[in-house]
């Protein structure tokens, strides 16, 4: 029996500053599936991802499963520079401290937990933002160029946690400029 999609996009059009980005775009996202949005700079990948996340409006062409929880990490990490890593994640995810500690250990971020975000490198900030994805327990992850600034170890860890998420019937829509190591990924190419 076919599973119901978590997200369904039907004949979706979007333009920016009078320029058509994409027209009649249609695809579905099912549990366990990864959608990779690819295309040249300015082709509308981030715009599409923002639309899927409901920023700044909810579009009638984008239908989500009832009660679907999503987690979004955009270009900006949405972290407060004056707060520590732990304070940021605590405030945003409201998870128990034990769960937060375990996730930070998994990501190798325990040594950074009490450091303010302003003192971290771009790659470390990105890791903290990506940690939020696995903390909130959302079924659908929406991630904009996740591995930007990440080193090899952090990149490998991200792909591993993404695989685990997909195995647990989660789904992901991400943008990327490079091929992703996900065998089951469906690629949507935007031409701009």
């Amino acid at each position, binding site marked *: 029996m076919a599973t119901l999609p978590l997200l369904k996009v039907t004949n979706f059009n979007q333009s920016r500053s009078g320029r058509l980005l994409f027209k009649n775009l249609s695809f579905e996202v099912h549990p366990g599936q990864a959608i990779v949005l690819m295309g040249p700079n300015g082709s509308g990948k981030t715009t599409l991802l923002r639309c899927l996340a409901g920023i700044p409006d909810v579009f009638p062409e984008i239908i989500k499963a009832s009660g679907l929880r999503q*987690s*979004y990490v*955009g*270009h*900006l*990490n949405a972290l*407060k520079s004056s707060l520590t890593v732990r304070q940021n994640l605590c*405030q945003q995810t409201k998870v128990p401290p034990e769960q937060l500690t375990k996730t930070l250990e998994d990501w190798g971020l325990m040594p950074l937990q009490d450091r303010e975000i302003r003192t971290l490198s771009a790659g470390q900030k990105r890791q903290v933002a990506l940690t939020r994805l696995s903390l909130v327990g959302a079924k659908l992850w929406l991630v904009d160029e996740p591995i930007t600034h990440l080193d090899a170890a952090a990149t490998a860890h991200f792909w591993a946690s993404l695989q685990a998420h997909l195995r647990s019937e989660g789904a992901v829509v991400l943008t990327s400029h490079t091929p992703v190591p996900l065998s089951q990924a469906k690629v949507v190419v935007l031409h701009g």
Partner: protein
Amino acid sequence: MGNLLTQMYCELKYTSQWALHVLLVFLSLMVAFGVLSSKNPALWQAFLPMLLMGLSYGMTSLSLGHLFRDDWEDGTLEWLMSEGKSLEVYGFAKILAHWMRLGIPLAIIAGVVTGFTSFPLIFGVAITTLTLIFLGAIPSALCLNTKANNSILLPLLILPFGIPMMVVSMAAATDPTVGIYSYLALQGGLFLMSAALSLIACPFALRLALR
């Protein structure tokens, strides 16, 4: 209600550095005026209400650029929208927290300067700053997407709306001919009008900024 209190708590706990700077500028200007008019106490008495209201307006309007700017720049605003959080609650919490950091300390300083003898003046500073923050929240959100220098633009944008409030507050503190309750009613009316307008318009302005 829980979301509102949580948002306000986070605001007050973690992002108050700029408010301290604004209050220090306010305090130093008050001290400077006090020193300059020390030879003429009548001058101090005559100009104090005007100085307090004028500086309160200046400090409040200059601080409005900070209201949503940090959340917009670091992506928090975008993230809140993606999480489906209410922009109405978010806007209200930001405004109240902003007032608690700035308006209440200004009113307390006004009280200290006047020796807590002029209730209409202290109340006037408190309610004028709150009204200005409610009014200023709309252009503050609308200007997020612009490259304009908001520290100059925002005070100018709210000036036409801020002047009536300042005139009423000044009159309440200095005019003995009309009963104080008439002025309080006027101040309350202006405040309620600005609060209602802001709570409706602010979420729309924030959505526009995120387009």
